[in-house]
């Protein structure tokens, strides 16, 4: 590297009033030596420049033609900001580098331009990268790539999109010799594993070396709770905590610019509405941001934050990531953040001035969330952060990848198998799994063996290619792993787009009904095909759309922190404002039942008008509880035929049955036993039908069903096959289908966290089991008692159930 180049870079930093951080030099040097790596830090800026400047230094004033750097970002909404961030040093130092972006939002015209003459640096998403990799004409452009950056790698890591990225990287490495891959990530509990997943393996079978660079020192973070006044009634199980609205208003007024984070989109809508009502003087200075809003609405909110024209934006995780908004000096978190990493990330969205403190004020949604806030502060101080575990060998993503590569001009199966097995995700792929995926991708597998005309690929002297261009085109439209349920576009009559809501929500509405969306009260005019036309309304809304999959489970780090806090409370230690405030309710719990200590397993039994309730409190997070609830219900129902309805939250779960369940017999027979665990879970999830739901996503990713886009989408919908029906058909007529097996495996591992479940069972066996018969609903039981979303599990004969049950009749039927 010429000293002159480094002088110009140093001058540019100085001109901006910045200093070059040691970690940035560390990345530059490592990159110059040809190393790949992972740069992580908990909060703060400078990551982008660390890798970007490394690439610029290499060919400072002479990038030449062709693609040199690929910048993969998880959200297409971030692509524009990233492009601007890359452009800034280039234009200010007057370098001849060109920068462009290619995402799902890019116009056909610009796509063609990029395909003909790609820029030196291209910002893209994992999905768009795969589309580029599927295009035979574009493929040669990858040969000149020297650097691939995967931004916000922690966001992708534990997801199928992460696996898609790993596969794409393996492709790029095979085409571009000597390419270096750098990941940018928030600090995780498993940084080494995050780096290993990005690096993959070398052809000799050894782990690819990855340099791990730790970013700037930890920023100071203050976590506090907004507490209700002493006299105020505190909801035990209510979902919103709008009671604390005045406190939030007070806090927002004290900040210059704030982001208010909620955990779900419906909450964001509700809080936006409530805050607008509470602060009429801030009309026009409040913004709303979530994933279902149209691009225009979201951009307006981002722009308002950047320029400081908005005083506050109510947002979901859609603003967790991305380029920093300098004016933001305060963050409010509605509801428990459910994890330490998320709390730190959100807190880090404020306080960007050097030396500034990041502040986050948490608003508990119910009483017990106060414990979570206290516990997350404990853990943040101790530096304990959750790991994100990369996925292993999802066959649906592999099937999709095989079609992608076939579309790019074809492949030789053996060569591609070796390439795929260099990735972290597929390193242990078995020959059988490979053969099955190949057969499925090429010929549709066993189901379609009799239908050669539906084979997607043709064999050209050992080289597998797609059968025609139409198939390739359809595949490109379907690339990706993010699944959404059928959604309905919401528009005004003049055509202005507001965003999208789920079909199931619109299906319940009639013209004239009012609902809250995009921060407005809207009246439904009509629904035609996939579009809902609305008009603004002055009335009170009667509903808020709910989007599926909104709930985040309590992380296992945080749940152990919660148990530690409760244990200390039992001994009378209430050494935080949150715990002090909780004292009275904890006393009620202790009086009506028990306050569980770290070594206890509390079980409460209650008889009510609704039936016989058993409440279990393992404090292990929603996911593990879902598995435990199904497992316990299954094992109880094995003792005698019973039907349970299950309710689950982060602290425990409830089994409700019409007759009293034989708990004592089941305990004696090994309710917590390890023996036959997998079989029992499988038995129970079959009844609970979790796998069916999982199957929809898997079927789509693998190309088993194509949802289609635009006009094609409508025609696909004529199929009207629900995922559960499809799953049934597969179980019966194609029992060897590994995708159905994958659905089961995914339910076992990611949905029910089988490994953690097994650990939990072991721990429950060692805890002291306390069964208390309660007369009244306790504070711990209350949120479960009122939960309406329930799973069911039954061992009774269908006929016996039908005899017991009652027909749901038309409500106001009078003739």
């Amino acid at each position, binding site marked *: 590297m010429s000293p002159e180049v480094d002088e110009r870079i140093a001058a540019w930093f100085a001109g901006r009033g910045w200093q070059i951080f040691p970690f940035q030099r560390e990345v530059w040097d490592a990159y110059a030596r040809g190393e790949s790596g992972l740069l992580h830090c908990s909060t703060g800026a400078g990551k982008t420049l660390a890798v970007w400047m490394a690439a610029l230094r290499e060919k400072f004033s002479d990038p030449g033609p062709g693609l040199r750097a690929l910048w993969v970002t998880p959200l297409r909404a971030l692509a524009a900001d990233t492009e601007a961030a890359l452009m800034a040093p280039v234009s200010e130092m007057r370098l001849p580098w060109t920068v462009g972006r290619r995402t799902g939002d890019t116009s056909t015209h610009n796509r063609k331009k990029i395909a003909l003459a790609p820029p030196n640096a291209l910002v893209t998403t994992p999905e768009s990268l795969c589309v580029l990799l599927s295009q035979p004409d574009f493929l040669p452009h990858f040969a000149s790539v020297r650097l691939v950056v995967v931004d916000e790698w922690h966001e992708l890591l534990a997801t199928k999109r992460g696996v898609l990225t790993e596969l794409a990287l393996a492709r790029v490495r095979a085409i571009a010799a000597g390419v270096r891959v750098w990941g940018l990530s928030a600090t995780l509990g498993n940084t080494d594993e995050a780096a290993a997943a990005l690096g993959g393996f070398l052809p000799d079978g050894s782990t690819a070396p990855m340099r791990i660079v730790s970013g700037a020192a930890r920023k100071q973070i203050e976590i506090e709770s907004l507490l209700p006044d002493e006299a105020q009634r505190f909801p035990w199980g209510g979902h919103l905590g709008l009671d604390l609205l005045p406190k939030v208003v007070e806090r927002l007024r004290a900040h210059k610019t704030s982001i208010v984070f909620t955990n779900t989109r419906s909450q964001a809508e509700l809080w936006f509405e409530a805050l607008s009502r509470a602060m009429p003087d801030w009309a026009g200075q409040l913004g709303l941001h979530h994933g279902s809003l149209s691009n225009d609405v979201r951009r307006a909110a981002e722009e308002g934050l950047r320029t400081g024209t908005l005083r506050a934006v109510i947002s979901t995780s859609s603003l967790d990531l991305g380029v920093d908004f300098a004016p933001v000096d305060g963050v409010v978190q509605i509801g428990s953040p459910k994890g330490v990493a998320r709390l730190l990330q959100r807190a880090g969205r404020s306080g960007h001035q050097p030396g500034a403190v990041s502040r986050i004020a948490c608003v508990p949604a119910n009483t017990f969330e106060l414990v979570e806030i206290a516990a997350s502060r404990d853990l943040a101080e101790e530096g304990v952060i959750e790991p994100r575990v990369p996925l292993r060998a999802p066959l649906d993503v592999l099937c999709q990848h095989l079609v992608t590569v076939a579309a790019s001009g074809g492949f030789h199966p053996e060569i591609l198998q070796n390439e795929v097995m260099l990735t972290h995700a597929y390193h242990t792929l078995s020959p059988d799994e490979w053969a099955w995926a190949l057969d499925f991708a090429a010929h549709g597998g066993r189901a379609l063996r009799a239908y050669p005309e539906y084979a997607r690929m043709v064999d050209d002297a050992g080289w597998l290619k797609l059968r025609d261009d139409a198939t390739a085109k359809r595949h490109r439209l379907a690339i990706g792993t993010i699944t959404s349920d059928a959604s309905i576009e919401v528009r005004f009559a003049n055509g202005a787009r507001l965003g999208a809501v789920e079909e199931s929500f619109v299906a319940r509405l009639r013209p004239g009904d009012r609902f809250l969306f995009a921060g407005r009260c809207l009246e439904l005019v009509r629904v035609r095909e996939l579009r809902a036309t609305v008009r603004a309304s002055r009335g009170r809304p009667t509903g808020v759309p709910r989007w599926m999959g909104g709930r985040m489970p309590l992380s296992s780090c945080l749940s152990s922190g919660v148990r530690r806090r409760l244990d200390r409370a039992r001994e009378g230690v209430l050494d935080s404002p949150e715990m002090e405030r909780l004292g009275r309710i904890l006393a009620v719990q202790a009086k009506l039942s028990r306050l569980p200590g770290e070594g206890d397993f509390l079980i409460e039994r209650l008889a009510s008008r609704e039936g016989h309730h058993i409440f279990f409190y393992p404090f292990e997070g929603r996911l593990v509880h879902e598995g435990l609830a199904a497992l316990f219900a299954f094992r109880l129902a094995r003792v005698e035929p019973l039907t349970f309805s299950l309710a689950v939250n982060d602290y425990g779960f409830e089994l409700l049955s019409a007759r009293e369940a034989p708990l004592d017999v089941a305990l004696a027979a090994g309710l917590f036993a390890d023996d036959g665990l997998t079989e029992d879970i499988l038995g129970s999830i079959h009844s609970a039908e979790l796998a069916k739901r999982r199957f929809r996503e898997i079927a789509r990713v693998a190309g088993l*069903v194509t949802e289609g886009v635009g006009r094609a989408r409508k025609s696909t919908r004529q199929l009207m096959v629900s995922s559960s029906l499809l799953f049934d058909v597969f179980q019966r007529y194609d029992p060897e289908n590994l995708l159905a097996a994958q659905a089961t495996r995914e339910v076992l591992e990611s949905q029910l966290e089988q490994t953690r479940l097994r650990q939990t069972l072991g721990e429950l066996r060692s805890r002291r089991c306390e069964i208390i018969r309660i007369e009244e609903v306790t504070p711990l039981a209350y949120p479960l008692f009122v939960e309406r979303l329930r799973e069911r599990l039954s061992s009774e004969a269908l006929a016996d159930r*039908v005899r017991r049950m009652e027909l749901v009749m038309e409500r106001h*039927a009078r003739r």
Partner: protein
Amino acid sequence: MPADSPCLAATIAGEPVVFDADHALVWHRQLFVADTHFGKDALGRARDAAIPEGTTDSDLARLDQLIERHTAEQLTILGDVFHSEHAAEPRTLARLKIWRTTHAELPIRMVAGNHDRRALHLAEEIGIERLDDGFALGPWRLCHEPSDLPGGHVLCGHVHPGVRLRGTGRESLRLPVFFSSPGCTILPAFGAMTGLHILRPRPLDQVFAVAGDRIFDLRRSSHT
């Protein structure tokens, strides 16, 4: 009728009928089913959805059993016999034709449903006689969609009717049903690739639900 039979004898419109848990209605050795949606799996495959084969075979085998069990002298399909013109896909069509020859003596008839519009030529090719919508047969009027046609009790399909049952402990269950209102009885959909549309009965409606291989008169059991 033996106690473990999958059938239930009942009276609708003053006529003795038998409900079969395999989604069929029997009246004087005449067999009625609705919404077979043949070719739905083929349509899926044509759209690159790798739907396994086997649903058509299994549906035809169920029809075989019904014909035998009730020594049927006639079979009538109340519309949506074909899901789309994709039923003309060679293998599906060949299967249907072969199946037809195994019941060469049996008159098979249909009324046309909304899904049959572009597949009606197949009926002729296979050997299914087409009746007009509203065809009068004894006390019945045979239709695809529910209606209040005068001059007889309407037998129809189209809706894929189901009901929801509720129990204590917030238990709930969805079941396919024969849904009988004054003047009109809707049959459950027959095809394996069909879903359910949930109806809420009114006081005068009769509901016969299929629970596995049993059939239940829900109104009677819920009143006792």
